[in-house]
């Protein structure tokens, strides 16, 4: 398929989106990343039944934490797509990258660089 998507997106593979942990997400922001999104399977299609639903709840939790810290909650998002949806994967990568570009660099990364 050889689809193009922005080179700034770093993919971290997990056995299931349910494996993602609040700490994984928070530590990314601690290290200064501008945004994180979790790409899980379609809701209702989880091989482990509820992994992607649990991932969404963790993303929602981190959104609240970021909001409390005065950081835009839009910097983290949950997306659902099937493994057969290559074009959608590339589309989401572009869509999220655009969103982060509009938000600008993370205030954490900016303070660290200064």
């Amino acid at each position, binding site marked *: 398929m050889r689809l193009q998507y922005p080179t700034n997106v770093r993919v971290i593979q997990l056995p299931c989106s349910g494996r993602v942990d609040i*700490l994984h997400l*928070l530590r990314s922001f*601690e290290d200064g990343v501008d945004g994180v999104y979790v790409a899980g399977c379609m809701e209702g299609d989880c091989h482990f039944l509820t992994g992607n639903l649990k991932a969404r709840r963790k993303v929602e939790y981190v959104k609240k934490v970021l909001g409390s810290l005065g*950081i835009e909650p839009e910097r983290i998002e949950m997306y659902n797509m099937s493994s057969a949806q290559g074009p959608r994967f590339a589309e989401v990568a572009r869509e999220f990258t655009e969103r982060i570009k509009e938000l600008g660099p993370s205030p954490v990364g900016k*303070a660290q660089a200064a």
Partner: protein
Amino acid sequence: MIVGDSKPLEEILSMIEGRDKVLVLGCRGCVTVCNVGGEKEVGILASALRIARKKDGLPPTVDEMTLERQCDPEYIEELAEVANKYDAIVSIACGVGPQFVAERFGDVAVFPGINTTFIGGALEHGVWAERCQSCGNCLVHNFGGLCPIARCSKSLMNGPCGGSDSGNCEISPDVPCVWDQIVKKMAVMGRLEELEQVWPNKNWLTARDGGPRKRVREDLKQ
């Protein structure tokens, strides 16, 4: 177990404002079981505080430590070598933890990172309910094993009151009327006539009303 709720991050941030070196201190007791103050929650709170500090260009020193318990002096003693390195210790144990730490280390500022809410149990994962008010004189066997002190909004010993509505308490449809449950349970057990006993006023001296409580076990005391 003792159940608690995390304090809002904004409140914790304002507590530690102006204090450079912070230790987030967890407890492996009750608060670990109710997912509010164990090693995992120490990691999450410390990470959030570091993000806030980095964002504001402040020193990001927020260390993590979890004690076996914060309600026993021998475990608090594990802090002896490190406590003075910090400008603030945020204890996310129940209300006992910050007090034991503050009593042992007089010159370190200690802050509570959680609100201690009640003595209760887990109804399911992520849901806890109050079951005991530590009144100091347990009587649950008289009420089918259900506590009217902790679970009736009015702590009525001779219930139900007129506010019992279709099995729920008048304060909220989300609060079950424990007296409705008591009557149904006693009926199932064939012990309904036991409820005819009229209870006199409860002696609250064994509860908090008698002042702060202390217990000495001569057989254990060294």
